[in-house]
């Protein structure tokens, strides 16, 4: 599989994740919605660390900012940070069993949400409801199936 193929796959899955992220949902479900885009970026950063996960994170983040960011670049920075951590630690994360991977994903999601939280505060859109952290838990819960699905798509298309 060449790097271009991997990149194409990354772009397609990220686009799908973006659609899932902006799909309108009822409010109570919206709070629980996992950050699919972050999970996708994490997956590619861990499993194809040299294919440009950080760039993917940045690009996806800018798109997400267009949809729901109060200021351009907010999600871009948060996703780039998460992708960078994942790329750095990809070997350690990859060798862990699924449960421990979920825990690490939870940590990554909390970092992501914290960056968003900080930027929200600095730019004058403070959102302090504890509900905003809820999606980290659901994200960690759905990580095993999401990762399995992504690796399945990878294997099937290869």
């Amino acid at each position, binding site marked *: 599989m060449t790097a271009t193929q991997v990149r194409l796959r990354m772009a397609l899955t990220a686009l799908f994740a973006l659609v899932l992220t*902006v799909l309108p949902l009822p409010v109570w479900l919206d*709070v629980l919605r996992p950050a699919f885009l972050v999970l996708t970026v994490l997956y590619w950063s861990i499993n194809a660390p*040299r294919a440009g996960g950080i760039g993917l994170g940045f690009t996806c983040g800018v798109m997400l900012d267009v949809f729901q960011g109060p200021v*351009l670049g907010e999600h871009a920075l948060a996703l*780039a940070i998460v992708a960078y951590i994942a790329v750095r630690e990809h070997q350690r994360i990859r060798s862990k069993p699924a449960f421990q991977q979920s825990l690490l994903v939870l940590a990554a999601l909390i970092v992501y949400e914290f960056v968003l939280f900080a930027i929200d505060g600095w730019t004058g859109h403070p959102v302090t409801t504890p509900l905003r952290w809820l999606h980290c838990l659901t994200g960690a819960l759905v990580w095993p199936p999401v990762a399995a699905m992504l690796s399945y798509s990878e*294997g099937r298309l290869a």
Partner: protein
Amino acid sequence: MAAFGTAAGRPLQGRGGSPGFRFTLYAVLSVVIMYLDQRAHYLERVRYVLQASAYPIQLAVNSPPSAWRWLRESFQSREALRAENARLRQRQRDLELLSMRYDALAHENGELRGLREALPPVADRWLAAEIISIQQSSLRQRLLIDRGATNGVFKGQAVLDDRGLIGQTTHVGPWSAEVILITDPEHAVPVRVERTGLRTIAVGGGDASSLALPYLPANADVRNGDLLVTSGLGGVFPEGYPVARVSEVHRDAIQPLAQVRATALSHIDSETEVMLVWFREGHPAAPATGARSAADVKSGNAAMQPLPAPPRPAASRPESAPEHAATPEHAATPAPGTTSQPRTAAPAPRRAAPTAAPAAGAAPEPAPATAPASTSASAPPGEPAAPAAGAASPEAPPAVPPRSRREP
């Protein structure tokens, strides 16, 4: 689950540069973007392009619900359609009966105001727009509609439905626009209590239909069921459109301010169409400011810049302008309205105050008596709407964009 690692060990040639280097690059880039977007608003063009490129995704996201709607509509039974038809017919008759006296009343109103003929309606043109998607979390209450700059939509345009105010446009793309709802916690709309004329500001409450009136003193004359209409201040919404109904008044003896909540009249949940409205410039009920153009609204920190002195109201007030919608006709009770001007309106006095200092590069023309009221440097001096707007501008705060944009 061991299958996660299938991509392990695949040879992938990197693009060059260590992850650390690339991360630094992207991080710096995003911080610069954030700075430009937040502080300087340099990125309107970029946003425009990005919004255009995001439009297909938004359409795709919206296609399942709209397909479902279409299916449901096309399989509606004949009886249901007949019933709906009858209901609509009835409603139309009722509305016609209601509006029968409208012309006479408008004429009478014009006479009372000392005009020779009735004023034209303040709404000049309107355009129906479909809602593409609704974002209704407690943090952001936004709509995406399917009209954009190609339809003449501009930033800061009022959006209504058939019962009341919905919000205003914040980001305008070529074919789509984002609307911030009046219930968004970042939105504030200047309102007037219809019964008493008391003016205040209604801030979004963060759920589907509630607004808060946080700046009313405890002894303010507000009751349950009072209708709130737009006050015409703020430069975005014209005067007199219904906004909300007071649903809860709570007075605490130890609190200096009353806790008042109101329920928005518009019903976005059940609505798929909204109306974009263009208002007649210079109409007494029109939004009371010259700063209506998109260029003006987005010029970030206008309050921080020196401004040219506006003309004296007495000198340039056109005699045809009657008791202006924006003048404090309820001057007897100005205390709540003026002392409780909160954050949104805070820049207003400074912006519209007759500053003696000449604008730095903003007022090239020598005669201060004809200085345009539109205070931004981007507005050409002596535009036709200037005198009328100038008369109103000393009392009128500038446009009320989403609050956060004002705050540094």
